[in-house]
C-alpha cells in the first residue's frame, strides 16, 4: 500500500495543571493509510480523545500542550503548522465527529445554516451552490426530507438524525481523514448499527480514511481493519483486526476481549479487569499495566517495556513478548 495519509510519531501531549504535569498522551505512534479504517481502543481516560484532539490542533490550551513528536499529514508536520494553516486543514482535510450528537450542534442555528457555513468556509461557492451541496450530502447520509431539515433546528431532530447531520457536516468538504470519537456511544443499539453502516459505506464510496476512537470492541470488530490499543496514554498493542481478536498478546488486550459479554456462553459473572486505569503520569517506572496484570513479574515493576515488533507484524509493549 502507499504512504500513510496521517502518520503520528512519538506524540506527547501534556497537561500542565496545578498538581503538576500530566502526560495524557505519551509517545504515541500510529498511522492511517488512504481508505483505511483504524480503530483506537482503550478504557476511559487512556488518552484516546486527547490524541484525536491533538491531531485536530484542538487540545484545550492552557492547560494542554503538544510537547513532542510529529503529526504528519501527507508529509506536513501539523504540530508546526500556523493557526491559519490549521484552520484550512480542519474540516477540509481532517474532519471530526464527536461522541455527543445531542450537544454537538449549535442549538440556535438552523441545520442548513451550520452545514452551509462548513461548506463556504472551505469553498468560495455562492449560497445557492452551497445549499445544493448541503442537501446532497444530507441525502447521502440517509436523512429523509433533506430540504425540510435544512430549515430545522437541532432540537427538532432525534439523536440518530443529529449524528447523521454531524457526519454530513464532517463529510461535506470531502476530507481525507475522518476522526470519529465514540460516534455511537450515546445512541440506541439499532441506531448505532445504522450509523456504523453509514460510516462504512462512506468509507467505501469516498475512500476517506477513518480513525474510529472507541471503547467498544464490537464496533471495532465491525468497522476496523487495524487496531491500536491504548493504555495510560501509551500505545500498548497494534495489530490487524483478526490478529487482535484471535491472538491478542498484551494481557490488557486479552482482558478487554474477555470482558465483552458473549451471548453464546452463559456466565454467572462477567469478566472484568481488576483495578482502574492509573492516573496518567502516576506510574513512572515499569509497565503502567503491571499493578493490574495477572502475569506481572519482577521485571514489569522495574523496567519500562518498549513497543516491539512481533513475527506476525503486530507490535506489543509487554515483557511477556520480549524477543
Amino acid at each position: 500500500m502507499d504512504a500513510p495519509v496521517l502518520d503520528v510519531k512519538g506524540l506527547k501531549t501534556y497537561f500542565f495543571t496545578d498538581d503538576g504535569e500530566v502526560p495524557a498522551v505519551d509517545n504515541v505512534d500510529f498511522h492511517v493509510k488512504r481508505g483505511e479504517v483504524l480503530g483506537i481502543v482503550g478504557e476511559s481516560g487512556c488518552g484516546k480523545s486527547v490524541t484525536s484532539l491533538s491531531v485536530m490542533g484542538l487540545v484545550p490550551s492552557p492547560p494542554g500542550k503538544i510537547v513532542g513528536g510529529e503529526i504528519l499529514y501527507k508529509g506536513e508536520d501539523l504540530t508546526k503548522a500556523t493557526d491559519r494553516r490549521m484552520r484550512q486543514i480542519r474540516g477540509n482535510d481532517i474532519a471530526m465527529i464527536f461522541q455527543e450528537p445531542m450537544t454537538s450542534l449549535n442549538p440556535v442555528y438552523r441545520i442548513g445554516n451550520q452545514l452551509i457555513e462548513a461548506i463556504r468556509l472551505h469553498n468560495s461557492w455562492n449560497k445557492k451552490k452551497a445549499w445544493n451541496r448541503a442537501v446532497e450530502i444530507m441525502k447521502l447520509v440517509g436523512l429523509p426530507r433533506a430540504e425540510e431539515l435544512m430549515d430545522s433546528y437541532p432540537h427538532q431532530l432525534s439523536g440518530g438524525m443529529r449524528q447523521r447531520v454531524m457526519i454530513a457536516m464532517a463529510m461535506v468538504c470531502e476530507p481525507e481523514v475522518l476522526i470519529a470519537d465514540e460516534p455511537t456511544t450515546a445512541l440506541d443499539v439499532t441506531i448505532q448499527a445504522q450509523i456504523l453502516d453509514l460510516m462504512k459505506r462512506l468509507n467505501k464510496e469516498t475512500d476517506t480514511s477513518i480513525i474510529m476512537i472507541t471503547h467498544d470492541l464490537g464496533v471495532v470488530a465491525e468497522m476496523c481493519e487495524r487496531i491500536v490499543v491504548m493504555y495510560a496514554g501509551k500505545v500498548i498493542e497494534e495489530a490487524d483486526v483478526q490478529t487482535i481478536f484471535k491472538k491478542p498478546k498484551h494481557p490488557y488486550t486479552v482482558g478487554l476481549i474477555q470482558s465483552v459479554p458473549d451471548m453464546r456462553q452463559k456466565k454467572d459473572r462477567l469478566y472484568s479487569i481488576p483495578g482502574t486505569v492509573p492516573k496518567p503520569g502516576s506510574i513512572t517506572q515499569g509497565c503502567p499495566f503491571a499493578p493490574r496484570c495477572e502475569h506481572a513479574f519482577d521485571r514489569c515493576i522495574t523496567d519500562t517495556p518498549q513497543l516491539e515488533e512481533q513475527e506476525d507484524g503486530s507490535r506489543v509493549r509487554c515483557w511477556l513478548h520480549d524477543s
Partner: protein
Amino acid sequence: MFAYTIRRILMLIPVLIGMSLIVFFLIRAIPGDPAQIILGQQASKEAVAELRGSLGLDEPWYTQYFIYMKDLLTGDLGNSIRTHAPISEEIWPYFAATLELSLFAMIIAVVIGVNAGIISAWFQNSWFDYVAMLLALIGVSMPIFWLGLMEQWAFAVEWRMLPTSGRESILNPVDSITNLYIIDTIIQGRFDQLQTVLRHLILPGVALATIPMAIIARMTRSSMLEVMRSDYIRTARAKGLRMFWVVYKHSLKNAFIPVLTVIGLQMGLLLGGAILTETIFSWPGIGRYIYDAIGFRDYPVIQSGILVIALVFVTINLLVDLLYAAIDPRIKYQ
C-alpha cells in the same frame, strides 16, 4: 406567538390595577394635607376645607379611587395640584427626557459591557480580563452621585470640555416636536443643536451607564465562559472556523439570554428615573418630576408618575420575554 403576546398584554391589566391601588394607599398614608400645602400655613380652616372639597379630597377613599380609575381609562391622568395642567400632557416631556438619557446610557453600557465581557471570556486570565473585571467591580460598587460630581468637576469645571448640566443650551433652545431632542434636531436639520444635545448627554449618560455596564460585562463574561466550553463550540472549531466567528457567532447568541435579562432589568431601572443623577445634572426627567411632586404632596402627579414607571417596567419585561424566543428557538410560548 401572537396569541402569547396578546395574553401577556392583557395580563398587564391586573398588574397595573394592583400597582395603582398600592400607590393610591401609600400616598394617603403619608402625613400632610395637600390643601394645606397649597394654601400655606397661614390659610384659614374654611379656605382649606373649601379647597379640599373642590379637589375631591373630602370624598371617601373608594370614591376617590373610583373617580381616579374612571378618568385613567379615558386617558385622563388628572390635573396637577401644583400647576393645574393636565398630567397626561405635562408628563411626556419629562418622560421623553428620561427616555433619551436612558437609551443613550444603555447603548454605551451594552456596547462596552458586552464586548468587554466577550473579550474577557475569550482571553480568560489575561491582563485584559483582570483589568476589565477589576473595573467592573469598581463600577458596580461606585456611588453614582459621587461619580457624577467627579465627572462634572473634571470634564466641565477643570477641563471645560463638556457642559455641567441640563439638556440643551439656554441661549439656543431646541424647538421640540417629540421632546426627544436628538430626533427633533435631526428632523429640523439643526446639526449645531444636535451636537450641543449630544454634548449634554455624555456626562449624565456615562454616569448612568456605569452600573449597568459593569453588571452586563460580568454577566456576559460568565455566560460566555460557560458556552465556550460546550460541545457545539468544539464542533464549530473543528469545522475550521476562525476564533472570531466562533466567539461572535456561535457563542454570543447562546450566551445572550442571561445578558438580555440583565439589560431588560437595568433598562427598567433607568427608565424609572434616576433621581440622584437627574438632580446632579439638572436633567428634567421623570425622576425629578416625581421627586418634586412628592415634596408638594401632588397626589395625582405621584400616582400617575409611578403608574407610568410601572407600565414601562412591565412593558420592558414583556419585550425581553418576546426577545428570548427570537434568540433561542427552543423557547416556545404556549
